[in-house]
């Protein structure tokens, strides 16, 4: 018979689940759990400076490792501060277990100090959530939380634990086994055979890869399918890296800021093979006009994604890797010379224009200079905005999990804490966080966490002293009525970094910006690399909101 408190039980179960790093912030209602955590010999706690930072640190770890990671927050404001990071994990299908303290059971519903119904609040943004009512329930709830977070389409799970439950003694015979994911649904073999026949019969097929390929670890299989069946391959924002960008079959990212050629090739396709993607509006533009002449094969682990936006001719519910494995031997090797040479001519005629790509003081040039100074082992995180799209367009991604970005929710403030998480998960890698001045200020307090942990994170700040994408949209679509998108104050980010104890390099004043950049990237430890970017640089080409993907503006 074993006996321990609820808090000790949580820590034991996390240890057994293989959790080695937890990000969080303590507070009154979660102090018993922190007390128990202080006795753990295997779990290291990383003290964030804002709970949203803790949530994104956990996400950064999970995006790199592919397994559920954990964050802690106290009740009330601690818990509500986690909400954005949880919603972000939900939209990008990131496995995460958030554990929050709650006021004691008897005080729930009394408007007690720092009481908030985080269970109710997180119903629509979690895969599932729990309000634990006894310490004994933890024996089931904690493994269940991990099982749910990692089974099928991954996602966030919240476990709300009242303070008295953390303190309650519980006796039990044995600890439960660590959670493992549920087996994936066995794919429909007839549908797979039908898909193979459609691929063989198609004349202008396109392979469309989404984040599901990353989650399923199927990038190698996806590339094999493309090569075997001669499929030009586009990737969503979430899937960048699943096929190396310089692979001859890669046609790059599709959608709002994809290349013109990519959207033109899709327009001409007669078969779209959608693998682990979800026809997001930023990717496909006006749904009815996306690939108007194409039949659709849709593979997804989540049955509710099939037929959600576009009705598929063949829909296959299953794990992407398992489906591709079954599909590959049935697909005929085809060279598809005519279609591929047409694709190549479209690629040559309508590439993304990258003015200034050789000048590290321009936005594209800076992205290229960073890439030139690093190899594929580096991890690239971004915040959200113009810089994010420029990096997505210009950085040569060549492997899965090389690229961490907030896609579905588009959360400014994601970058720095996610990069910290990535560096915690894989400390031997260089982690670069491209950010903009708007995003950077949204979780700038995590510079303190970064300095304390001394992680190898390089923040490349593209500073145009404005909310660049808002300024761009107002300039293009709101009659140049620029409002609330230009900052009047201009903080000195170099001094801010210095104040946090982080080295800083200013490319604006460097005699040789390329050399200064390379040196900053190659020396170990955190560093801020600052570069001013003109506010008049816009992200092009662009599909105007609500338009079809072929109606792009700009070069």
């Amino acid at each position, binding site marked *: 018979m074993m006996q321990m408190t609820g808090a000790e039980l949580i820590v034991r179960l996390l240890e057994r689940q293989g959790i080695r790093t937890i990000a969080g912030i303590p507070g009154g209602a979660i102090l018993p759990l922190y007390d128990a955590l202080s006795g753990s010999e295997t779990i290291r706690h990383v003290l964030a400076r804002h709970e949203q930072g803790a949530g994104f640190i956990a996400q950064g770890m999970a995006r790199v490792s592919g397994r559920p990671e954990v964050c802690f927050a106290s009740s009330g404001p601690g818990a509500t501060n986690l909400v954005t990071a949880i919603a972000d994990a939900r939209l990008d299908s990131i496995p995460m277990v958030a554990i929050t303290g709650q006021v004691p059971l008897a005080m729930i519903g009394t408007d007690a100090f720092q009481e908030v119904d985080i*269970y*109710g609040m997180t119903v629509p943004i979690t895969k*599932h959530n729990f309000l634990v009512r006894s310490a004994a329930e933890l024996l089931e709830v904690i493994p269940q939380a991990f099982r749910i977070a990692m089974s099928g389409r991954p996602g966030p799970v919240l476990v709300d634990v009242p303070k008295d439950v953390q303190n309650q003694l519980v006796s039990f015979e044995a600890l439960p086994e660590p959670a493992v994911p549920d087996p994936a649904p066995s794919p429909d073999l007839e549908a797979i055979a039908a898909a193979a026949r459609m691929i063989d019969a198609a004349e202008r097929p396109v392979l469309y890869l989404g984040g599901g390929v990353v989650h399923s670890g199927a990038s190698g299989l996806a590339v094999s399918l493309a090569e075997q069946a001669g499929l030009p391959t586009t990737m969503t924002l979430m899937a960048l890296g699943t096929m190396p960008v310089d692979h001859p079959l890669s046609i790059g990212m599709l959608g709002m800021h994809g290349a013109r050629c990519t959207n033109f090739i899709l327009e001409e396709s007669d078969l779209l093979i959608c693998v682990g993607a979800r026809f997001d509006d930023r990717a496909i533009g006006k749904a009815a006009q996306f690939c108007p002449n194409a039949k659709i094969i849709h593979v997804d682990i989540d*049955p509710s994604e099939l*037929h*959600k936006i576009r009705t598929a001719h063949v829909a296959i519910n299953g794990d992407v890797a398992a489906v591709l494995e079954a599909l590959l031997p049935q697909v005929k090797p085809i060279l598809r010379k005519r279609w591929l040479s047409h694709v190549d001519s479209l690629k040559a005629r309508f590439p993304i224009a990258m003015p200034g790509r050789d000048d590290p003081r321009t936005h594209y040039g800076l992205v290229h200079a960073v890439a030139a100074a690093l190899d594929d082992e580096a991890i690239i995180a971004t915040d959200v905005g113009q810089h994010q799209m420029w990096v997505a367009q210009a950085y040569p991604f060549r492997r899965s999990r090389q690229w961490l970005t907030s896609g579905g929710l588009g959360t400014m403030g994601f970058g720095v804490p996610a990069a910290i998480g990535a560096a915690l998960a894989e400390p031997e890698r260089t982690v670069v966080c491209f950010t903009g001045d708007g995003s950077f200020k949204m979780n700038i307090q995590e510079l303190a966490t970064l300095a304390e942990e001394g992680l190898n994170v390089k923040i490349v700040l593209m500073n145009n002293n404005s909310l660049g994408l808002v300024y761009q949209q107002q300039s293009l679509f709101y009659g140049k009525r620029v409002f609330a998108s230009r900052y009047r104050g201009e903080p000195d980010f170099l001094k801010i970094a210095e104040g946090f104890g982080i080295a800083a390099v200013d490319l604006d004043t460097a005699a040789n910006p390329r050399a200064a950049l390379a040196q900053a990237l190659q020396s170990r430890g955190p560093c801020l690399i600052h570069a001013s970017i003109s506010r008049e640089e816009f992200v092009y080409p662009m599909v*105007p909101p609500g338009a079809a993907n072929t109606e792009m503006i700009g070069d």
Partner: protein
Amino acid sequence: MIEQVAEPLQQQGFAKVVLELEVNNHPGVMSHICNLFARRAFNVEGILCMPMADASRSRIWLLVFEDQRLEQMVLQVEKLVDVLSVRRHGAEHEVFERLEKFFL
């Protein structure tokens, strides 16, 4: 150019259906289900919930319109961890008919 605003969803003129859900019986299950319908502005015309003989489970009856979003709604309901099964019946199912006399 501004993103289009969706047309108001039409519900009148659609047939009604009865959904029969078997769910885990604990506080919070109803909120997961109602939340799902509410945030999609999918009107639930009638709702009935009782524990089953085995008290660890409940049965929920929902009366809804069969509009074009129903398929997606059912798929979303099936994804809820506490929902064990979903069955679909026609509007002629007697469960709500027999209740009607309490609402006269």
